[in-house]
């Protein structure tokens, strides 16, 4: 395709375009009809977090490793179950941190 003629067509199209429309009271009329802004309520999120934590607790309460880890931690013993539990918690925290950072970068 001839590039210079492409440019001519583009120039003609730009010339044909009238450009931005003058306001003429449009913004004012629009602002008068603008509905009040709805505030995003936080309670559904916290309810979800609460339900999630409760579900995790119910599922994991009878896992022997976690049970032993929790008891040893309270007793102040640095046993294998305690270290496993800490490592799991650290891994989950890092995962959440990574997710949060990726999400904030997208925004």
């Amino acid at each position, binding site marked *: 395709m001839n590039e210079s003629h492409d440019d001519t067509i583009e120039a*003609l199209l730009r010339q044909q375009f009238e450009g931005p429309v003058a306001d003429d009271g449009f913004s004012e009329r629009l602002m008068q009809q603008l509905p009040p802004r709805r505030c995003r309520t936080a309670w559904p999120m916290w309810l979800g977090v609460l339900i999630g934590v409760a579900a995790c607790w119910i599922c994991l309460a009878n896992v022997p490793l976690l049970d032993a880890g929790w008891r040893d931690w309270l007793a102040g013993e640095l046993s294998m179950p305690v270290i496993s539990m800490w490592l799991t918690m650290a891994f989950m925290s890092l995962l959440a941190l990574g997710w949060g950072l990726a999400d904030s970068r997208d925004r």
Partner: protein
Amino acid sequence: MADSAAEARIDQALVTRIRLDGDRCAFEQLVRRNQGMVRAQLRRLLHGDEAMADDLAQEAFILAWRKLDQFRGEARFSSWLYRIAYTCFLQAHRIPSKHDSVDGEMIEQLQAPTHAIDLQLDLERAMQRLSAAEQAVLLHCVQLGLSHEEAAYVLAMPLGTVKTHAARGKAKLKTWLADWRDARTEKAS
């Protein structure tokens, strides 16, 4: 280029103010900054129907106000507005209206500005002969000055399709307006 980046940053700052405390003045500034081009976009899409274009522009801005939390900044705010306006146009276009029943001759009368020169009239007619997708792509890429990527975002089309429509639309215009080029070449020689 730097100017448009600065404009986008100002829009982004205004969006942040609205998100933080629902600042209506910040939204008014956004409207004032963007209404001209959004209304121009809709007027072109609606072949000069100013009343309908303004109604759709109003609908688009109110939608933007309601859905501002969904703007994630992956595109410029102006592109996001163009996209909402184009969606409003498509939705309105699905409902048969009195505008659709206007015949071709009437459309030509509506579109033809009294001061237009013949070449512009021919270009206008040639544009009408393009497919709706080609018209939309040329409007956004050439007349509104968006990049192919931005036009793909606004029109919700794959990038390759946008490029194809742009090239095909320009090729058709080139063929249909060939007589003007030939006449000009003859005049020059």
